[in-house]
């Protein structure tokens, strides 16, 4: 009898969670204590601390991937609109999201924004909120607006559970998510240092598990994965170290991530599930929680296409920093088809990278992309070009 390595066992568990579009993990969590509620959210960022403080489970909804056939969802969208809203609608219309008591639609693009209104019409018995975040980063302006938005969400969730959310509840939840963020940051640092030990196809699944598990459990899972990954020595290859950029909303199929790796790339940083590391460091958990969450959002948060860069010279700075921190040799822009934010941002980032002589390549995908050969060829050629010709 062969023993399955712990790291493989962890990954297999995460894979099962990833493939379970029925959200059985959420149903089990709810069934464990009568009266529990679960709130879904879409990319990029919602303050999950508030949901947790209400005693609810926050559930990341990232579309149907390549596992479902979208039939009803296609009747709601024109061909030129990305796939994530149509597969999300499909999940809901087929009852797979029935275990969710509400949905949060963050400010990211016009499609997700309008999906919030569709949800209000189609699922009238559910709590629905479009969660706006400021594009003004002054404490007295955008901060005040954001604190009031947080308070409105806090009030809503308090009503939903029947008891207001106290500052103590919130500070306790902030501590829980600080621990989760640290674990995810450690995972990313570990992968950047030892990408052959923690392939992105695994890291991705570990991260995805955090979309359906309670944060305490997910934190432990991440810690366990790092330890288990370190315990199993894997061959180191002469791969090109790349950052993957543009996949912050609709997700690529897992096969695409594997294809990039098989083509000779180590993905040493990415923008998958940014909600897990949107805030860049610990949020103080002993003060006024909403103000602290606001300050962290305004002054210590990640940058992506959905966020306004106040000055021209700010464009690409965050990406360059990620390249430097992760020791990347190039960038693969992998954006979903018809994703306005990612595709409009891309030429500016490409220009910045070119100015800094960072090699880059780009392609598009859909969550159900099936043909991997062209992507493997492109990523392989890119990796070869870095290895053979790059001067950096």
């Amino acid at each position, binding site marked *: 009898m062969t023993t399955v390595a712990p790291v493989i066992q962890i990954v297999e568990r995460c894979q099962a969670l990833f493939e379970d579009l029925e959200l059985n993990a959420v149903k089990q969590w709810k069934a464990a204590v009568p009266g529990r509620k679960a709130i879904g959210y879409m990319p990029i960022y919602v303050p999950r601390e508030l949901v947790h403080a209400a005693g609810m489970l926050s559930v990341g909804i990232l579309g149907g991937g390549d596992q479902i056939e979208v039939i009803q969802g296609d009747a709601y969208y024109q061909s030129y609109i990305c796939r994530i809203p149509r597969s999300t609608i499909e999940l809901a219309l087929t009852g797979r999201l029935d275990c969710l008591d509400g949905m949060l639609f963050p400010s990211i693009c016009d499609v997700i924004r*309008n999906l919030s209104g569709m949800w209000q*019409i189609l699922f009238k018995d559910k709590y629905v909120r479009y969660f706006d975040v400021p594009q*003004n980063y002054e404490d007295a*302006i955008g901060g005040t607006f954001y604190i009031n938005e947080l308070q409105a969400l806090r009030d809503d969730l308090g009503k939903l559970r029947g008891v207001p959310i106290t500052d103590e509840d919130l500070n306790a939840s902030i501590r829980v998510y600080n621990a989760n963020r640290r674990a995810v940051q450690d995972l990313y640092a570990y992968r950047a240092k030892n990408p052959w030990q923690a392939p992105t196809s695994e890291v991705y699944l570990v991260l995805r598990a955090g979309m359906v598990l309670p944060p305490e459990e997910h934190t432990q899972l991440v810690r366990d994965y790092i330890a288990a990954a370190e315990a199993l020595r894997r061959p180191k290859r002469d791969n090109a170290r790349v950052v993957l950029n543009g996949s912050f909303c609709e997700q690529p199929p897992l096969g695409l991530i594997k294809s990039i790796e098989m083509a000779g790339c180590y993905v040493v940083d990415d923008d998958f599930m940014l909600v897990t590391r949107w805030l860049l460091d610990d949020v103080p958990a002993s003060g006024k929680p909403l103000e602290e969450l606001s300050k962290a959002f305004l002054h210590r948060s990640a940058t992506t296409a959905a966020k306004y860069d106040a000055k021209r010279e700010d464009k690409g700075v965050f990406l360059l920093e990620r390249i430097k921190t992760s020791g990347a040799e190039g960038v693969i822009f992998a954006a979903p088809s018809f994703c306005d934010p990612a595709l409009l941002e891309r030429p500016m980032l490409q220009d910045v990278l070119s100015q800094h002589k960072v090699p880059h390549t780009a392609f598009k995908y859909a969550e159900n992309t099936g043909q991997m050969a062209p992507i493997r060829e492109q990523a392989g050629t890119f990796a070869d070009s870095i290895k053979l010709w790059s001067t950096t």
Partner: protein
Amino acid sequence: MNATAAMPQSTKKPPVQKEDAMWLQKEMINRNYHELATAREQGRKVAATFVPGNLNELLMCFDFARSLPETNALQNGLRKKSGKFILDAERDGQSEDVCNYVKADLGMMLGGEIGPTGEALPKPDILLLSYTGCFTFMKWFELIRHKYGCESVMLHVPYQGEGKIAPNMRNYVVKQLKETVIPTLERISGVKFDIDRLRQYMKESTKAEEDLVAVLQSAKHRPSPIDGYFGAVYYIGPIFTAFRGTPEATEFYRVLRQEIEQRLREGKGPITPDGEMGEEKYRLVVEGPPNWTSFREFWKMFYDEGAVVVTSTYAKVGGVYDFGFRHDPEHPIESLAEYCLGCYTNLNLPSRIDMICKYIDDYQADGLLINSIKSCNSFSAGQLLILREVERRTGKPAAFIETDLVDPRYFSASNVKNRLESYLQMVKQKRAAAPAAH
């Protein structure tokens, strides 16, 4: 300042039929292009901004010449120039998937920024990014800024996700105007802000808004004296762009209203490019922007069938005035905030559906036609649900056609015509089935 009190006289000899006001509108727009082209020699600073959330009165307080990239793109579409610009932008690295207004604008820049009228447009001194009802605006101005290196200032307008303007949203916009936008405009222009000057412009705005609403609502009559979509494009031009708040616009709308009221008294239908429209057979509400590259061909498909668009959501994209909003000179900054928050694409889907259902009722329309635009997710995402909901609530038939704003590759005349004709057949059958209703 470009504000003048006298109504300009049109000198054009029209090859196509238009109301006098339509010709005047065209001249006003062209004159604005000339002002932009000569702004540097006149020592004027230039601001670029967008139609929804357009703060024209505020920009005039700082003596800016005003450029509206959406208008540039649509004018280039009307003049059949946009197709090349889009291809140029795509060759320069823009994705084929994204908004074609953006690409038409970027393509124009690549071609030396020669404006729709053939004069070179100046590089803006400031990009006033009114983030109202369209996420793409943000990226658009970031892209222009990236190319030009000019400054941008953001006015973030929260979306009406809950179907209302909450005090927090209003206060946020007001604060940005007072503490970010106005100080930036003062610094760039070198002109100190004078709130009384803003009030004065707003007094003009309210007069024009009042007359515009009267014109748009004239379509409640049978026959409608206007086309509330194709014709309305001409009517909304000045007030949605660089003229709202000018005495010139006030005069334009006063004359326009007189002209339309005269048509109403005479029981006339709309003027089309081929002259007076014949019998009004169908009354439609249209959702979504028009196609600009084949604008006249598109319109002809309607009037050839006797279909008049009695009202449209597109005619509210730069301000929803027909539900009572007016700029308020007594509370000018707050009023600008309300205006931005209330633009059509900043409304959530349930509010848009309510509005369309009310239009169908108020304007005694036969049904809804959605022109779904490939470029515009803000309008288009969710339109198929809008269609179903409107049909369900009103019992009136709805139909769906797909085109684009300025990319000629996405206008298939035969497909559009087939769909429209089938739809009108359906309307006819519905009428036959319920004769008492008509």
